[in-house]
């Protein structure tokens, strides 16, 4: 963190957007990136375990819809992680003087919820890969690499070359981080974050139904191939 902070000129235009304070900037980045990636990984391991012990097949044999099953499986890790994020941010309010009024809390809750739905979609797509190919999916690795380096977790994306900045616009975490920093470091609330919120909403509307459709297709194929409980 120290060496990265030294490569970023704190007084420069790049960090100026976030009140010129690198440590709180980095703190928000690391907490949120860690939360999303850890929840993704836990979900992936959970699916693998369910396949191995046979409960995946047992649950599919009940009348529960695929949507309820996979969403229910994903939501717990993200919700529990979300509670931990709030605790970290309360600490951040104490140590880094985060803006933490009720308006900021509600705005952050909205941003985090939209981010959660986008990431649950990625988690479902990743699980579909694992179910179909019976191997640990590479998506988690790809997401982790892309998100850590491109979404502005450790440094502002304005430091990246233009083509990478354009790629960063396709990662939901970029908007979650941007909105969270603006809320806690500059006191923004929902009315001033319309761009970020609308973009996150668009990610949710496109990604979530798509991920459920992929999961339904994969389950149907696994039922044809007889491979629901294979890993």
């Amino acid at each position, binding site marked *: 963190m120290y060496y990265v902070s030294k490569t970023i000129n704190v007084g420069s235009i790049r960090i100026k957007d976030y009140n010129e304070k690198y440590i709180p900037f980095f703190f928000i980045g690391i907490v949120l990136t860690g939360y999303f990636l850890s929840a993704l990984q836990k979900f992936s391991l959970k699916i693998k375990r369910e396949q191995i*012990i*046979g*409960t995946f*097949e*047992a*649950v*599919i*044999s*009940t*009348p*529960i*819809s695929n949507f309820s099953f996979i969403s229910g499986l994903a939501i717990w890790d993200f919700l529990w992680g979300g509670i931990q994020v709030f605790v970290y941010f309360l600490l951040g309010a104490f140590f880094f003087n985060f803006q933490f009024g009720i308006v900021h809390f509600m705005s952050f809750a909205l941003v985090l919820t939209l981010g959660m739905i986008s990431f649950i979609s990625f988690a479902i797509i990743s699980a579909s890969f694992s179910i179909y190919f019976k191997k640990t999916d590479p998506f988690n690795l790809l997401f982790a690499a892309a998100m850590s380096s491109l979404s502005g977790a450790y440094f502002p994306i304005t430091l990246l070359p233009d083509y990478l900045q354009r790629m960063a616009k396709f990662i939901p975490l970029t908007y979650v981080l941007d909105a969270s920093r603006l809320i806690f470091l500059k006191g923004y609330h929902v009315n001033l974050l319309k761009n970020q919120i609308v973009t996150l909403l668009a990610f949710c509307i496109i990604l979530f139904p798509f991920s459920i459709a992929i999961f339904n297709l994969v389950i*149907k194929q696994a*039922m*044809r*191939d*007889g491979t*629901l*409980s294979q890993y």
Partner: protein
Amino acid sequence: MCCIIEIADLWKEYPRVKKITDVILHPRKKDVFTALKGVSIKFRKSEFTAIVGLNGAGKSTLLKILSGILLPTKGRIYIDNLELCANLKKIKEKVSFISSEGKGFYWALTARENLNFFGALYGINRSRLKKRIEELSDLFAIKQLDNQLYNYSSGYKEMIFIIKALLNDSQVLFFDEPAKSLDYMARERLLGFVREELVRVRKKTVIVGTNSLENLEIYDRLVILDRGLIMAEGTIEELKQKSGGYNKNNRQIFEYYVAK
């Protein structure tokens, strides 16, 4: 007695895993294993039927297709006048599947937690589920449901698996190799209980997939399945008569039909 399950020309193929060289050199070549080959059969309501066959005969495949866990490759299946593939959700509400050795349970959870979880998946509300679990545990004389599942003896575990299958009051129960880990006396007691309590009193339709040739007289009807084909069906007496000898034992009857 009317039919609750009707199967017409059922085929099931499983794709074989292809080698990399085959994938490159013969990408369009389909390599499949046919588990069921044109199976046509009817199962009557409130009947205790056994599908008897050796390992790899297709018993588990047939039971899993009827339970909605697998999709058939070809064929028509009706369960309680509902076409299987078009009404999977409704059919899953009417049937229950118990796999061999209780796969599909969370062993670190207690029996009660497992039953609560699966009961919730069937959409049974909490108060009704609690009553149902109490009622079924009384019926099976299981007083303690709050131990972790792996702490129970094999016999108790089998009872708990059956309780799980009965939670939603399914009309049809599919047992895949039940009581495999029990000794012959315990197995006989369990199957006797299933026949008397579930089939005779509660009028359930129970279909058992088994490779055991012991005590086949307990079943109302037998279906002999071999390499995906139905070789014979009927009561044990009918099968003895057709095989030409009332003094034949179960193994000799089975080998007679399988050798055909």
